[in-house]
C-alpha cells in the first residue's frame, strides 16, 4: 500500500537545503506533508539533523517540471562543441569583483 493511496492529503514535497558555507540550495530528497508549513518543519527534522544546512526550500513536487531522460540527447549534446560560448578569450581587469 503506497503512502499516496492511504493519505491523499499528504502531498509529496521536494526539499532543497543550502549548506552553511554554500551559495545555492541543493536537492536533498523528498517527504510527505499536508501543507507548506508542516513540510518546512518536516524538512528541518528529516534533512538537517546533522547540520546539513542553514536554509531550506520546500516545493510541491507537482510544481516542478523536469526535463525528460528521452530528450537528453537533443537538449544537452549540442552545447558540447561550441567553445565560443565559454568566456575564456579575454583577461579580467584587476579589481573587477563578482564577475
Amino acid at each position, binding site marked *: 500500500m503506497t503512502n499516496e493511496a492511504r*493519505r491523499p492529503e*499528504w502531498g509529496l514535497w521536494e526539499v532543497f537545503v543550502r549548506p552553511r558555507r554554500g551559495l545555492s540550495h541543493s536537492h536533498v530528497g523528498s*517527504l*510527505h*506533508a*499536508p*501543507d507548506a*508549513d*508542516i513540510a518546512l*518543519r*518536516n524538512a528541518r*527534522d*528529516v534533512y538537517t*539533523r546533522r547540520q546539513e544546512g542553514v536554509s531550506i526550500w520546500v516545493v510541491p513536487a507537482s510544481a516542478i517540471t523536469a526535463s525528460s531522460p528521452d530528450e537528453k540527447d537533443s537538449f544537452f549534446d549540442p552545447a558540447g562543441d561550441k567553445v565560443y560560448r565559454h568566456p575564456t578569450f579575454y583577461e579580467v581587469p584587476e579589481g573587477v569583483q563578482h564577475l
Partner: protein
Amino acid sequence: MTADVLTADLVEYVLRVGDDALVAAQRLGEWSARAPEMEEDIALSNIALDQLGVARAMLSYAGELEGAGRGEDDLAFLRDDREFRNCLLAELPNGDFAVTMARLLFLSTYQLSVYEELSRSGDDRLAGVAAKARKESAYHVDHAAQWTVRLGDGTPESHRRMQAAVDDLWPYTHELFASDGLVKRLADAGVGVDPAGLREGWLGAVSSVLDEATLNRPADGWAPGGGRDGLHTEHLSYLLTEMQVLHRGHPGATW
C-alpha cells in the same frame, strides 16, 4: 541561609527540572515506530532526544552536587517513583495524538519559560544548559502549536479529540506553577526560578494557540499535585518499570 541548605535545595530543584525532561523523553519515545506518519515519527523522536539531553545534563549535575557517588545512570535507573520529582503532567499516558500534542504544548511552553529565566541563573552550569535548551524548547512549542491549530481547526473528529485532550490535561497544568519554600529560597539566591511568576506568560501563549485552534480554554478548577514531593499517579511506576528493567537486570552493563 547556609551553603548546605542551598546545595540541598539545588539538588532537589535540579532533579525537578531533569525529571520533567526525563519522563517527557520516555513518553515521547513510546511513539517511535508508531507515529501516524514517518516524518512525524522522526520529529517526535528528535524532540524526545532533545528532552533526554537536558535530562542527562541535569541528572549528572544533581549527582555531582549531592556528592554521594550517584551518576546520571544511578539517578535515572535506580530511583523508585517516590524519589522522582517530575510534574504529573509529564507522566500521564500518551493517549491519542491529540493528547500527546496538547501535553507537548502545555509542557514545552512551561519549559521554555523556565529555561529562559534559568539562562540568567547565577549558577553557571544551569545557565549554560538552559541557554541551549531554550532553543530546543522553542521548536517543541512550535511543533505542538502547529498540530494543535490544525487538529483544533480541522475536521469535527479532530476538533472533538483536541478539545477533549485540552479539557482532560488542563487540571494538571496548575502544578507546573505551584511555588514552595524551596523555589522561593533558590529564586532569592538568584539561582533558581519560582514558577509562580511564569503562569501569566504561559496562559497568554497557550491561549493564543487555543484561540487560533478554535478551542475553548477550560475553567480552572481541580488542581492535582504532589509530583515535586514524590507523590505520583499510578502511571509513573509502570513507566519506570519499563525504563529501568534493563539496567536493573544487568547492573553495570555497558553497550
